[in-house]
Protein backbone atom coordinates (compact mmCIF):
# COMPACT_ATOMS: atom_id res chain seq x y z
CA UNK A 1 0.00 0.00 0.00
CA UNK A 2 1.57 3.22 -1.04
CA UNK A 3 -1.30 5.32 0.22
CA UNK A 4 -0.49 6.65 3.61
CA UNK A 5 -3.47 7.46 5.64
CA UNK A 6 -3.14 10.98 6.88
CA UNK A 7 -6.50 11.34 8.54
CA UNK A 8 -5.32 13.08 11.58
CA UNK A 9 -6.54 15.66 13.99
CA UNK A 10 -4.32 18.63 13.59
CA UNK A 11 -4.92 19.76 17.12
CA UNK A 12 -2.54 17.15 18.49
CA UNK A 13 0.18 19.14 20.19
CA UNK A 14 2.76 16.53 19.32
CA UNK A 15 1.95 16.52 15.63
CA UNK A 16 4.15 19.51 14.98
CA UNK A 17 7.16 18.30 16.93
CA UNK A 18 10.26 19.09 14.95
CA UNK A 19 13.19 16.79 14.64
CA UNK A 20 16.24 18.37 16.09
CA UNK A 21 19.53 16.56 16.09
CA UNK A 22 19.28 15.96 19.77
CA UNK A 23 15.88 14.44 19.39
CA UNK A 24 16.66 11.99 16.66
CA UNK A 25 17.67 9.09 18.83
CA UNK A 26 14.60 9.65 20.95
CA UNK A 27 12.32 9.68 17.96
CA UNK A 28 11.33 6.08 18.28
CA UNK A 29 10.34 6.65 21.84
CA UNK A 30 8.53 9.80 20.93
CA UNK A 31 6.49 7.93 18.36
CA UNK A 32 5.91 5.06 20.71
CA UNK A 33 4.56 7.31 23.41
CA UNK A 34 2.80 9.56 20.97
CA UNK A 35 -0.58 7.95 21.51
CA UNK A 36 -0.22 7.98 25.25
CA UNK A 37 0.07 11.73 25.32
CA UNK A 38 -3.40 12.17 23.89
CA UNK A 39 -4.95 12.45 27.30
CA UNK A 40 -3.13 15.76 27.71
CA UNK A 41 -5.94 17.71 26.17
CA UNK A 42 -8.95 16.18 27.69
CA UNK A 43 -11.56 17.83 25.53
CA UNK A 44 -9.82 17.53 22.21
CA UNK A 45 -12.25 18.69 19.50
CA UNK A 46 -14.01 16.04 17.50
CA UNK A 47 -13.63 15.88 13.71
CA UNK A 48 -16.62 18.08 13.09
CA UNK A 49 -15.56 20.53 15.77
CA UNK A 50 -12.01 21.09 14.69
CA UNK A 51 -11.85 24.02 12.26
CA UNK A 52 -8.56 22.71 10.87
CA UNK A 53 -9.66 19.11 10.37
CA UNK A 54 -8.80 17.98 6.85
CA UNK A 55 -8.92 14.60 5.16
CA UNK A 56 -6.33 13.74 2.55
CA UNK A 57 -4.15 10.93 1.30
CA UNK A 58 -0.66 10.87 -0.19
CA UNK A 59 -0.45 9.36 -3.67
CA UNK A 60 2.49 8.16 -5.71
CA UNK A 61 2.50 8.99 -9.43
CA UNK A 62 1.03 5.58 -10.35
CA UNK A 63 -1.77 5.97 -7.81
CA UNK A 64 -2.66 9.37 -9.20
CA UNK A 65 -2.59 8.03 -12.77
CA UNK A 66 -4.90 5.23 -11.74
CA UNK A 67 -7.23 7.70 -10.05
CA UNK A 68 -7.42 9.91 -13.16
CA UNK A 69 -7.94 6.88 -15.38
CA UNK A 70 -10.80 5.68 -13.23
CA UNK A 71 -12.53 9.02 -13.58
CA UNK A 72 -11.93 8.98 -17.35
CA UNK A 73 -13.24 5.44 -17.68
CA UNK A 74 -16.34 6.26 -15.71
CA UNK A 75 -17.18 9.07 -18.10
CA UNK A 76 -16.38 6.87 -21.12
CA UNK A 77 -18.75 4.14 -20.08
CA UNK A 78 -21.44 6.55 -18.94
CA UNK A 79 -21.41 8.66 -22.12
CA UNK A 80 -20.05 6.09 -24.59
CA UNK A 81 -17.16 8.18 -25.82
CA UNK A 82 -13.44 7.76 -26.42
CA UNK A 83 -11.05 8.07 -23.44
CA UNK A 84 -9.31 10.89 -25.28
CA UNK A 85 -12.49 12.96 -25.51
CA UNK A 86 -13.54 12.09 -21.96
CA UNK A 87 -10.17 13.24 -20.65
CA UNK A 88 -10.52 16.52 -22.51
CA UNK A 89 -14.05 17.12 -21.21
CA UNK A 90 -12.98 16.36 -17.64
CA UNK A 91 -9.97 18.66 -17.85
CA UNK A 92 -11.96 21.53 -19.34
CA UNK A 93 -14.82 20.90 -16.88
CA UNK A 94 -12.49 20.83 -13.84
CA UNK A 95 -13.17 17.12 -13.24
CA UNK A 96 -16.78 17.70 -12.23
CA UNK A 97 -17.83 14.31 -13.64
CA UNK A 98 -21.43 14.38 -12.41
CA UNK A 99 -21.96 17.85 -13.77
CA UNK A 100 -20.49 16.91 -17.16
CA UNK A 101 -22.67 13.81 -17.45
CA UNK A 102 -25.76 15.84 -16.64
CA UNK A 103 -24.93 18.60 -19.10
CA UNK A 104 -24.05 16.08 -21.80
CA UNK A 105 -27.32 14.27 -21.40
CA UNK A 106 -29.25 17.54 -21.48
CA UNK A 107 -27.60 18.98 -24.56
CA UNK A 108 -24.68 17.11 -26.02
CA UNK A 109 -23.87 19.67 -28.70
CA UNK A 110 -23.96 22.59 -26.32
CA UNK A 111 -21.52 20.96 -23.91
CA UNK A 112 -19.12 19.92 -26.66
CA UNK A 113 -19.21 23.40 -28.17
CA UNK A 114 -18.73 25.14 -24.83
CA UNK A 115 -15.83 22.85 -23.99
CA UNK A 116 -14.16 23.74 -27.31
CA UNK A 117 -13.99 20.12 -28.41
CA UNK A 118 -16.31 20.41 -31.37
CA UNK A 119 -17.45 23.20 -33.59
CA UNK A 120 -21.03 24.20 -34.38
CA UNK A 121 -21.79 24.22 -38.12
CA UNK A 122 -22.42 27.96 -38.40
CA UNK A 123 -18.97 28.79 -37.04
CA UNK A 124 -17.08 26.70 -39.56
CA UNK A 125 -15.09 29.08 -41.69
CA UNK A 126 -13.31 28.11 -44.78
CA UNK A 127 -9.64 27.35 -44.78
CA UNK A 128 -7.29 30.10 -45.70
CA UNK A 129 -6.38 28.94 -49.17
CA UNK A 130 -9.87 27.68 -49.86
CA UNK A 131 -10.33 25.84 -53.11
CA UNK A 132 -6.68 25.56 -54.05
CA UNK A 133 -5.17 22.19 -53.13
CA UNK A 134 -2.31 23.67 -51.05
CA UNK A 135 -1.94 23.36 -47.29
CA UNK A 136 -2.93 26.71 -45.73
CA UNK A 137 0.15 26.70 -43.52
CA UNK A 138 3.03 25.49 -45.69
CA UNK A 139 1.43 26.19 -49.08
CA UNK A 140 2.67 22.83 -50.33
CA UNK A 141 0.36 20.73 -52.50
CA UNK A 142 -0.80 17.24 -51.47
CA UNK A 143 -3.55 14.89 -52.60
CA UNK A 144 -6.85 15.76 -50.87
CA UNK A 145 -6.94 12.62 -48.73
CA UNK A 146 -3.64 13.53 -47.07
CA UNK A 147 -5.17 16.48 -45.25
CA UNK A 148 -6.22 16.10 -41.64
CA UNK A 149 -8.34 18.14 -39.29
CA UNK A 150 -10.75 18.25 -36.37
CA UNK A 151 -14.51 18.79 -36.25
CA UNK A 152 -14.06 22.45 -37.20
CA UNK A 153 -13.11 21.42 -40.72
CA UNK A 154 -9.76 23.23 -40.82
CA UNK A 155 -7.57 20.94 -42.89
CA UNK A 156 -3.79 20.92 -42.87
CA UNK A 157 -1.07 18.58 -44.04
CA UNK A 158 0.33 16.03 -41.54
CA UNK A 159 3.74 17.69 -41.71
CA UNK A 160 2.34 21.00 -40.47
CA UNK A 161 0.32 19.31 -37.70
CA UNK A 162 3.51 17.58 -36.62
CA UNK A 163 5.44 20.88 -36.58
CA UNK A 164 2.60 22.54 -34.69
CA UNK A 165 2.56 19.82 -32.01
CA UNK A 166 6.33 19.94 -31.64
CA UNK A 167 6.29 23.68 -31.17
CA UNK A 168 3.41 23.60 -28.68
CA UNK A 169 4.98 20.81 -26.60
CA UNK A 170 8.26 22.74 -26.54
CA UNK A 171 6.29 25.65 -25.06
CA UNK A 172 4.96 23.28 -22.40
CA UNK A 173 1.43 23.30 -23.80
CA UNK A 174 -0.42 19.96 -23.80
CA UNK A 175 -4.12 19.89 -22.96
CA UNK A 176 -4.45 23.41 -24.34
CA UNK A 177 -3.15 22.77 -27.88
CA UNK A 178 -5.59 24.34 -30.33
CA UNK A 179 -6.35 23.81 -34.00
CA UNK A 180 -4.12 25.78 -36.37
CA UNK A 181 -7.06 27.56 -38.00
CA UNK A 182 -7.42 31.33 -37.71
CA UNK A 183 -9.13 32.24 -34.42
CA UNK A 184 -10.09 28.59 -34.03
CA UNK A 185 -10.27 27.51 -30.39
CA UNK A 186 -11.00 23.85 -30.98
CA UNK A 187 -8.80 21.73 -28.70
CA UNK A 188 -6.70 18.87 -30.01
CA UNK A 189 -7.60 15.58 -28.28
CA UNK A 190 -4.68 13.27 -27.54
CA UNK A 191 -5.72 10.48 -29.93
CA UNK A 192 -5.52 12.92 -32.83
CA UNK A 193 -2.13 14.13 -31.62
CA UNK A 194 -0.79 10.61 -31.25
CA UNK A 195 -2.03 9.72 -34.75
CA UNK A 196 0.26 12.44 -36.13
CA UNK A 197 3.19 12.65 -33.75
CA UNK A 198 5.49 9.68 -34.29
CA UNK A 199 8.67 10.81 -32.52
CA UNK A 200 8.77 8.57 -29.45
CA UNK A 201 10.77 11.04 -27.35
CA UNK A 202 8.22 13.74 -27.99
CA UNK A 203 5.30 11.39 -27.36
CA UNK A 204 6.90 10.59 -24.02
CA UNK A 205 7.43 14.21 -23.17
CA UNK A 206 3.86 14.99 -24.14
CA UNK A 207 2.51 12.27 -21.91
CA UNK A 208 4.58 13.47 -18.91
CA UNK A 209 3.65 17.13 -19.37
CA UNK A 210 0.06 16.13 -19.94
CA UNK A 211 -0.06 14.29 -16.64
CA UNK A 212 1.26 17.37 -14.86
CA UNK A 213 -1.31 19.55 -16.59
CA UNK A 214 -4.10 17.19 -15.56
CA UNK A 215 -2.99 17.14 -11.92
CA UNK A 216 -2.69 20.93 -11.87
CA UNK A 217 -6.19 21.26 -13.28
CA UNK A 218 -7.73 18.79 -10.82
CA UNK A 219 -9.24 20.61 -7.84
CA UNK A 220 -8.69 17.70 -5.45
CA UNK A 221 -5.10 16.93 -6.42
CA UNK A 222 -1.92 18.87 -5.85
CA UNK A 223 1.76 18.10 -6.31
CA UNK A 224 3.63 18.34 -3.02
CA UNK A 225 5.59 21.61 -3.25
CA UNK A 226 8.43 20.15 -1.15
CA UNK A 227 11.87 20.16 -2.79
CA UNK A 228 12.50 17.00 -4.83
CA UNK A 229 9.26 15.50 -3.60
CA UNK A 230 7.09 13.93 -6.27
CA UNK A 231 4.06 12.74 -4.35
CA UNK A 232 0.57 14.02 -5.01
CA UNK A 233 -1.87 15.07 -2.32
CA UNK A 234 -5.42 13.86 -2.79
CA UNK A 235 -7.87 15.85 -0.70
CA UNK A 236 -11.42 14.83 0.03
CA UNK A 237 -12.51 18.43 -0.45
CA UNK A 238 -10.55 21.22 -2.15
CA UNK A 239 -10.15 23.47 0.86
CA UNK A 240 -7.57 25.96 2.12
CA UNK A 241 -6.45 23.61 4.88
CA UNK A 242 -3.14 22.45 6.23
CA UNK A 243 -1.40 19.48 4.64
CA UNK A 244 1.70 17.80 6.01
CA UNK A 245 3.48 15.63 3.46
CA UNK A 246 4.33 12.34 5.10
CA UNK A 247 7.25 11.86 2.70
CA UNK A 248 9.18 15.16 2.82
CA UNK A 249 7.49 16.62 5.92
CA UNK A 250 6.74 19.97 4.31
CA UNK A 251 3.54 21.66 5.40
CA UNK A 252 1.47 23.86 3.13
CA UNK A 253 -1.99 25.06 2.26
CA UNK A 254 -3.82 22.56 0.05
CA UNK A 255 -5.61 25.14 -2.05
CA UNK A 256 -2.75 27.45 -2.96
CA UNK A 257 0.32 25.34 -2.20
CA UNK A 258 2.23 27.95 -0.23
CA UNK A 259 2.90 27.95 3.51
CA UNK A 260 -0.20 27.29 5.56
CA UNK A 261 -1.80 30.61 6.46
CA UNK A 262 -4.93 30.25 8.64
CA UNK A 263 -6.91 32.33 9.46
CA UNK A 264 -5.91 34.45 6.46
CA UNK A 265 -7.32 33.16 3.18
CA UNK A 266 -5.33 32.31 0.02
CA UNK A 267 -5.93 35.54 -1.91
CA UNK A 268 -5.23 37.79 1.06
CA UNK A 269 -1.99 36.06 2.03
CA UNK A 270 -0.79 36.32 -1.55
CA UNK A 271 -1.56 40.04 -1.56
CA UNK A 272 0.19 40.45 1.79
CA UNK A 273 3.33 38.55 0.77
CA UNK A 274 3.56 40.54 -2.47
CA UNK A 275 3.21 43.75 -0.51
CA UNK A 276 5.91 42.69 1.94
CA UNK A 277 8.25 41.83 -0.94
CA UNK A 278 7.51 45.15 -2.70
CA UNK A 279 7.98 47.20 0.46
CA UNK A 280 10.93 45.30 1.87
CA UNK A 281 13.11 48.42 1.60
CA UNK A 282 10.77 50.50 3.72
CA UNK A 283 10.35 47.80 6.32
CA UNK A 284 14.04 47.03 6.70
CA UNK A 285 14.79 49.61 9.32
CA UNK A 286 12.51 48.07 11.91
CA UNK A 287 14.31 44.75 12.00
CA UNK A 288 16.14 45.62 15.20
CA UNK A 289 17.44 42.97 17.56
CA UNK A 290 18.07 45.40 20.37
CA UNK A 291 15.87 47.95 22.13
CA UNK A 292 16.34 50.10 25.20
CA UNK A 293 14.60 49.22 28.45
CA UNK A 294 11.71 51.70 28.73
CA UNK A 295 12.43 52.12 32.43
CA UNK A 296 16.21 52.27 32.93
CA UNK A 297 17.23 52.64 29.25
CA UNK A 298 19.84 49.92 29.31
CA UNK A 299 20.26 48.23 25.90
CA UNK A 300 18.51 44.87 25.78
CA UNK A 301 19.02 42.18 23.18
CA UNK A 302 16.19 39.80 22.38
CA UNK A 303 17.53 36.27 22.48
CA UNK A 304 14.36 34.27 23.12
CA UNK A 305 10.96 34.12 21.49
CA UNK A 306 8.82 35.47 24.29
CA UNK A 307 7.73 39.08 23.88
CA UNK A 308 7.17 39.47 27.59
CA UNK A 309 10.59 40.93 28.48
CA UNK A 310 12.14 41.50 31.83
CA UNK A 311 15.00 43.95 32.09
CA UNK A 312 17.93 42.10 33.62
CA UNK A 313 19.08 45.31 35.33
CA UNK A 314 15.98 46.94 36.80
CA UNK A 315 13.63 43.92 36.55
CA UNK A 316 10.96 46.01 34.80
CA UNK A 317 8.45 43.79 32.96
CA UNK A 318 7.64 45.18 29.55
CA UNK A 319 6.38 44.26 26.08
CA UNK A 320 8.97 43.97 23.32
CA UNK A 321 6.50 45.06 20.64
CA UNK A 322 5.10 48.27 22.15
CA UNK A 323 7.56 48.78 25.04
CA UNK A 324 4.53 49.19 27.33
CA UNK A 325 4.23 47.86 30.86
CA UNK A 326 3.52 44.13 30.71
CA UNK A 327 0.96 44.44 33.50
CA UNK A 328 -1.44 46.18 31.15
CA UNK A 329 -1.15 43.30 28.66
CA UNK A 330 -3.58 40.45 28.73
CA UNK A 331 -6.24 42.51 30.43
CA UNK A 332 -9.29 43.72 28.59
CA UNK A 333 -7.44 46.95 27.94
CA UNK A 334 -4.85 45.06 25.92
CA UNK A 335 -4.20 47.30 22.94
CA UNK A 336 -0.80 46.11 21.79
CA UNK A 337 -1.99 44.13 18.75
CA UNK A 338 -4.62 46.68 17.74
CA UNK A 339 -3.83 49.46 15.32
CA UNK A 340 -5.57 52.72 16.17
CA UNK A 341 -6.52 54.40 12.96
CA UNK A 342 -6.85 58.15 12.70
CA UNK A 343 -10.66 58.58 12.72
CA UNK A 344 -10.43 61.79 10.72
CA UNK A 345 -8.18 60.39 8.00
CA UNK A 346 -10.63 60.94 5.12
CA UNK A 347 -10.35 64.71 5.57
CA UNK A 348 -6.57 64.81 5.70
CA UNK A 349 -4.23 65.76 2.87
CA UNK A 350 -2.89 63.17 0.44
CA UNK A 351 0.50 63.37 2.13
CA UNK A 352 -0.92 62.70 5.60
CA UNK A 353 -2.99 59.84 4.19
CA UNK A 354 0.07 58.28 2.58
CA UNK A 355 2.04 58.60 5.82
CA UNK A 356 -0.85 57.06 7.75
CA UNK A 357 -1.08 54.16 5.26
CA UNK A 358 2.63 53.47 5.70
CA UNK A 359 2.31 53.68 9.47
CA UNK A 360 -0.53 51.20 9.41
CA UNK A 361 1.37 48.78 7.19
CA UNK A 362 4.51 48.99 9.33
CA UNK A 363 2.47 48.35 12.46
CA UNK A 364 1.16 45.06 11.05
CA UNK A 365 4.39 44.15 9.33
CA UNK A 366 6.40 44.65 12.50
CA UNK A 367 4.17 42.26 14.43
CA UNK A 368 4.09 39.73 11.60
CA UNK A 369 7.86 39.84 11.35
CA UNK A 370 8.37 39.73 15.11
CA UNK A 371 6.34 36.55 15.50
CA UNK A 372 8.29 34.94 12.67
CA UNK A 373 11.48 35.76 14.57
CA UNK A 374 10.02 34.50 17.83
CA UNK A 375 9.23 31.21 16.10
CA UNK A 376 12.89 30.87 15.16
CA UNK A 377 14.09 31.75 18.64
CA UNK A 378 11.63 29.35 20.25
CA UNK A 379 12.91 26.65 17.96
CA UNK A 380 16.36 27.23 19.48
CA UNK A 381 14.87 27.20 22.96
CA UNK A 382 13.28 23.85 22.25
CA UNK A 383 16.63 22.44 21.21
CA UNK A 384 18.25 23.74 24.37
CA UNK A 385 15.50 22.25 26.51
CA UNK A 386 15.81 18.94 24.74
CA UNK A 387 19.51 18.69 25.38
CA UNK A 388 19.02 19.68 29.01
CA UNK A 389 16.38 16.98 29.38
CA UNK A 390 18.77 14.45 27.92
CA UNK A 391 21.33 15.40 30.53
CA UNK A 392 18.75 15.05 33.29
CA UNK A 393 17.64 11.65 32.04
CA UNK A 394 21.26 10.51 31.92
CA UNK A 395 21.61 11.65 35.51
CA UNK A 396 18.51 9.64 36.41
CA UNK A 397 16.46 12.75 37.12
CA UNK A 398 13.25 11.28 35.80
CA UNK A 399 12.77 9.43 32.53
CA UNK A 400 12.32 10.71 29.05
CA UNK A 401 8.60 10.01 29.33
CA UNK A 402 8.40 12.25 32.38
CA UNK A 403 9.67 15.13 30.31
CA UNK A 404 7.53 14.45 27.24
CA UNK A 405 5.01 17.09 28.30
CA UNK A 406 7.67 19.74 27.77
CA UNK A 407 8.18 18.70 24.17
CA UNK A 408 4.43 18.85 23.72
CA UNK A 409 4.30 22.31 25.25
CA UNK A 410 6.99 23.60 22.89
CA UNK A 411 5.23 22.07 19.88
CA UNK A 412 1.92 23.58 20.90
CA UNK A 413 3.55 26.95 21.45
CA UNK A 414 4.91 26.81 17.92
CA UNK A 415 1.51 26.00 16.50
CA UNK A 416 -0.22 28.78 18.43
CA UNK A 417 2.37 31.40 17.58
CA UNK A 418 2.24 30.38 13.92
CA UNK A 419 -1.50 31.01 13.81
CA UNK A 420 -0.94 34.26 15.71
CA UNK A 421 1.57 35.40 13.11
CA UNK A 422 -0.97 34.80 10.35
CA UNK A 423 -3.66 36.80 12.14
CA UNK A 424 -1.83 40.00 11.26
CA UNK A 425 -2.28 39.96 7.46
CA UNK A 426 -5.90 39.01 8.12
CA UNK A 427 -6.43 42.02 10.39
CA UNK A 428 -4.54 44.35 8.04
CA UNK A 429 -6.99 43.74 5.19
CA UNK A 430 -10.13 43.66 7.34
CA UNK A 431 -12.72 46.40 7.01
CA UNK A 432 -13.52 48.47 10.08
CA UNK A 433 -16.52 47.34 12.05
CA UNK A 434 -17.91 44.90 14.55
CA UNK A 435 -16.34 41.86 12.97
CA UNK A 436 -12.90 43.44 13.06
CA UNK A 437 -13.44 44.37 16.70
CA UNK A 438 -14.30 40.78 17.52
CA UNK A 439 -11.30 39.55 15.57
CA UNK A 440 -8.94 41.94 17.33
CA UNK A 441 -10.37 40.97 20.67
CA UNK A 442 -9.72 37.28 20.01
CA UNK A 443 -6.33 38.04 18.50
CA UNK A 444 -5.35 39.95 21.64
CA UNK A 445 -6.56 37.07 23.82
CA UNK A 446 -4.52 34.60 21.81
CA UNK A 447 -1.52 36.89 21.83
CA UNK A 448 -1.56 37.23 25.61
CA UNK A 449 -1.85 33.47 26.15
CA UNK A 450 0.86 32.69 23.62
CA UNK A 451 3.27 34.99 25.43
CA UNK A 452 2.29 33.49 28.78
CA UNK A 453 2.95 30.03 27.39
CA UNK A 454 6.26 31.14 25.91
CA UNK A 455 7.29 32.65 29.25
CA UNK A 456 6.50 29.40 31.02
CA UNK A 457 8.16 27.17 28.43
CA UNK A 458 11.35 29.20 28.70
CA UNK A 459 11.25 28.67 32.45
CA UNK A 460 9.99 25.11 32.12
CA UNK A 461 12.27 23.53 34.65
CA UNK A 462 11.00 25.79 37.40
CA UNK A 463 7.38 25.87 36.23
CA UNK A 464 5.00 23.38 37.75
CA UNK A 465 3.91 20.78 35.23
CA UNK A 466 0.23 21.27 36.01
CA UNK A 467 0.59 25.01 35.57
CA UNK A 468 2.23 24.56 32.18
CA UNK A 469 -0.37 22.08 30.99
CA UNK A 470 -3.09 24.40 32.09
CA UNK A 471 -1.51 27.21 30.10
CA UNK A 472 -1.26 24.94 27.04
CA UNK A 473 -4.92 24.19 27.30
CA UNK A 474 -5.87 27.87 27.52
CA UNK A 475 -3.68 28.91 24.58
CA UNK A 476 -4.97 26.15 22.31
CA UNK A 477 -8.56 26.97 23.24
CA UNK A 478 -7.99 30.62 22.29
CA UNK A 479 -6.52 29.50 18.98
CA UNK A 480 -9.42 27.16 18.28
CA UNK A 481 -11.96 29.83 19.16
CA UNK A 482 -10.43 32.31 16.78
CA UNK A 483 -10.20 29.77 13.95
CA UNK A 484 -13.73 28.57 14.52
CA UNK A 485 -15.03 32.09 14.11
CA UNK A 486 -12.79 33.28 11.30
CA UNK A 487 -11.35 30.40 9.30
CA UNK A 488 -13.56 29.94 6.28
CA UNK A 489 -14.73 26.35 6.25
Amino acid at each position, binding site marked *: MSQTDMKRQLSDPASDATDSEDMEEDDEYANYYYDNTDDLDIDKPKKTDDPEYFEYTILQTEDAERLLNEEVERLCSELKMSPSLAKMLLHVGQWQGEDIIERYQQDQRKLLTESNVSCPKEMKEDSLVGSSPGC*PVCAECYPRDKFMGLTCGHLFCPHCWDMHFRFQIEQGITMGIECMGQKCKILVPEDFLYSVLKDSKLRDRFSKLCFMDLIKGHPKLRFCPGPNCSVIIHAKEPRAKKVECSVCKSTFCFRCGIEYHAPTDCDVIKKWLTKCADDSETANYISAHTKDCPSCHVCIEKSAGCNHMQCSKCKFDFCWMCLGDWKSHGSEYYECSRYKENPNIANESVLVQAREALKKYLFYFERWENHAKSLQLEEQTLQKITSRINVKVMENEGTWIDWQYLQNAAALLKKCRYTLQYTYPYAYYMDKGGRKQLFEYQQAQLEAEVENLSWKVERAEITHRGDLENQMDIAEKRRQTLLKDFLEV
Partner: protein
Amino acid sequence: MAGLPRRIIKETQRLQADPVPGISAIPDEANARHFKVEVAGPVKSPYEGGTFHLELFLPEEYPMSAPKVRFMTRIYHPNIDKLGRICLDILKDKWSPALQIRTVLLSIQALLSAPNPDDPLDTNVAEAWKKDEESAIEEARQFTRQHAMGNKPQQ
Protein backbone atom coordinates in the same frame (compact mmCIF):
# COMPACT_ATOMS: atom_id res chain seq x y z
CA MET B 1 20.82 30.58 -45.84
CA ALA B 2 18.80 27.40 -46.01
CA GLY B 3 16.05 27.10 -48.61
CA LEU B 4 13.16 29.43 -47.92
CA PRO B 5 9.92 27.56 -47.15
CA ARG B 6 7.41 27.70 -49.96
CA ARG B 7 4.96 29.40 -47.65
CA ILE B 8 7.25 32.40 -47.11
CA ILE B 9 7.98 32.68 -50.82
CA LYS B 10 4.26 32.67 -51.66
CA GLU B 11 3.44 35.23 -48.98
CA THR B 12 6.21 37.54 -50.15
CA GLN B 13 5.09 37.29 -53.78
CA ARG B 14 1.52 38.07 -52.87
CA LEU B 15 2.50 41.00 -50.65
CA GLN B 16 4.22 42.55 -53.62
CA ALA B 17 1.77 41.61 -56.38
CA ASP B 18 -1.31 42.54 -54.34
CA PRO B 19 -0.21 44.92 -51.56
CA VAL B 20 -2.44 45.96 -48.67
CA PRO B 21 -3.56 49.58 -49.22
CA GLY B 22 -1.47 51.92 -47.10
CA ILE B 23 1.14 49.28 -46.27
CA SER B 24 4.33 48.24 -48.01
CA ALA B 25 6.48 45.33 -46.92
CA ILE B 26 9.74 44.67 -48.71
CA PRO B 27 12.06 41.79 -47.87
CA ASP B 28 15.66 42.62 -47.08
CA GLU B 29 18.06 41.75 -49.89
CA ALA B 30 20.42 39.97 -47.54
CA ASN B 31 17.80 38.17 -45.47
CA ALA B 32 14.47 37.16 -46.95
CA ARG B 33 12.99 36.63 -43.48
CA HIS B 34 13.53 40.28 -42.63
CA PHE B 35 11.02 42.86 -43.96
CA LYS B 36 11.14 46.62 -44.06
CA VAL B 37 7.59 47.78 -43.50
CA GLU B 38 5.96 51.17 -43.98
CA VAL B 39 2.50 51.86 -42.63
CA ALA B 40 0.64 55.06 -43.54
CA GLY B 41 -1.20 56.59 -40.58
CA PRO B 42 -4.91 55.80 -41.12
CA VAL B 43 -7.17 58.71 -42.11
CA LYS B 44 -9.18 60.28 -39.27
CA SER B 45 -6.70 58.94 -36.75
CA PRO B 46 -4.15 61.13 -34.93
CA TYR B 47 -1.52 59.36 -37.01
CA GLU B 48 -2.95 60.59 -40.34
CA GLY B 49 -0.30 62.02 -42.64
CA GLY B 50 2.51 60.15 -40.92
CA THR B 51 4.60 57.34 -42.32
CA PHE B 52 5.61 54.72 -39.78
CA HIS B 53 8.58 52.47 -40.31
CA LEU B 54 8.49 49.00 -38.80
CA GLU B 55 10.69 45.95 -38.98
CA LEU B 56 9.21 42.49 -39.28
CA PHE B 57 11.15 39.29 -38.80
CA LEU B 58 10.05 35.73 -39.45
CA PRO B 59 11.69 33.44 -36.87
CA GLU B 60 12.93 29.95 -37.72
CA GLU B 61 9.71 28.41 -36.36
CA TYR B 62 7.45 30.61 -38.50
CA PRO B 63 4.57 29.98 -39.13
CA MET B 64 4.35 27.80 -36.00
CA SER B 65 5.30 30.90 -34.03
CA ALA B 66 4.31 34.49 -34.76
CA PRO B 67 6.42 37.02 -36.70
CA LYS B 68 8.34 39.54 -34.61
CA VAL B 69 7.29 43.11 -35.36
CA ARG B 70 8.53 46.42 -33.95
CA PHE B 71 7.91 50.11 -34.66
CA MET B 72 11.11 51.94 -35.62
CA THR B 73 9.37 55.33 -35.74
CA ARG B 74 8.45 56.84 -32.36
CA ILE B 75 4.71 56.81 -31.82
CA TYR B 76 2.41 57.98 -29.02
CA HIS B 77 0.01 55.06 -28.59
CA PRO B 78 -1.27 53.17 -25.50
CA ASN B 79 -0.49 49.76 -27.00
CA ILE B 80 2.98 50.58 -28.33
CA ASP B 81 5.86 51.38 -26.00
CA LYS B 82 8.97 53.55 -26.31
CA LEU B 83 10.95 50.65 -27.73
CA GLY B 84 8.34 50.17 -30.43
CA ARG B 85 7.03 46.89 -29.02
CA ILE B 86 3.40 46.22 -29.88
CA CYS B 87 0.74 44.77 -27.62
CA LEU B 88 -1.37 42.76 -30.02
CA ASP B 89 -2.99 39.42 -29.14
CA ILE B 90 -2.28 37.72 -32.47
CA LEU B 91 1.44 38.42 -31.99
CA LYS B 92 1.30 36.49 -28.73
CA ASP B 93 -1.05 33.78 -27.48
CA LYS B 94 -3.67 34.30 -30.19
CA TRP B 95 -1.24 33.51 -32.99
CA SER B 96 -2.31 30.77 -35.33
CA PRO B 97 -0.13 29.19 -38.05
CA ALA B 98 -2.88 29.94 -40.54
CA LEU B 99 -2.46 33.69 -40.01
CA GLN B 100 -0.14 35.56 -42.35
CA ILE B 101 2.14 38.58 -42.53
CA ARG B 102 -0.74 40.32 -44.31
CA THR B 103 -3.15 39.69 -41.40
CA VAL B 104 -0.58 40.94 -38.91
CA LEU B 105 -0.01 44.18 -40.83
CA LEU B 106 -3.76 44.74 -41.21
CA SER B 107 -4.18 44.26 -37.47
CA ILE B 108 -1.45 46.81 -36.77
CA GLN B 109 -3.13 49.29 -39.09
CA ALA B 110 -6.41 48.68 -37.26
CA LEU B 111 -4.69 49.24 -33.93
CA LEU B 112 -3.63 52.70 -35.12
CA SER B 113 -7.23 53.51 -35.99
CA ALA B 114 -8.57 52.19 -32.69
CA PRO B 115 -6.16 52.42 -29.74
CA ASN B 116 -7.17 50.26 -26.80
CA PRO B 117 -6.15 51.93 -23.51
CA ASP B 118 -7.79 49.13 -21.50
CA ASP B 119 -5.07 46.67 -22.55
CA PRO B 120 -2.07 48.97 -22.28
CA LEU B 121 1.58 48.35 -22.92
CA ASP B 122 2.69 51.87 -22.08
CA THR B 123 0.76 52.50 -18.87
CA ASN B 124 1.62 56.22 -18.80
CA VAL B 125 0.16 56.80 -22.24
CA ALA B 126 -2.85 54.62 -21.41
CA GLU B 127 -3.49 56.61 -18.22
CA ALA B 128 -3.30 59.89 -20.14
CA TRP B 129 -5.61 58.43 -22.79
CA LYS B 130 -8.22 57.41 -20.26
CA LYS B 131 -8.02 60.62 -18.21
CA ASP B 132 -8.24 63.10 -21.06
CA GLU B 133 -8.69 61.56 -24.49
CA GLU B 134 -8.69 64.87 -26.31
CA SER B 135 -5.30 65.97 -24.98
CA ALA B 136 -3.88 62.50 -25.58
CA ILE B 137 -5.00 62.59 -29.21
CA GLU B 138 -3.43 66.03 -29.58
CA GLU B 139 -0.21 64.66 -28.11
CA ALA B 140 -0.31 61.77 -30.59
CA ARG B 141 -0.78 64.27 -33.45
CA GLN B 142 2.18 66.26 -32.18
CA PHE B 143 4.30 63.08 -32.06
CA THR B 144 3.23 62.21 -35.59
CA ARG B 145 4.28 65.64 -36.90
CA GLN B 146 7.57 65.46 -35.05
CA HIS B 147 8.63 61.89 -35.80
CA ALA B 148 6.57 60.47 -38.67
CA MET B 149 6.55 63.22 -41.28
CA GLY B 150 9.36 63.65 -43.78
CA ASN B 151 11.24 60.84 -42.05
CA LYS B 152 13.57 58.41 -43.73
CA PRO B 153 13.70 54.75 -42.77
CA GLN B 154 16.04 54.32 -39.82
CA GLN B 155 18.83 51.82 -39.83
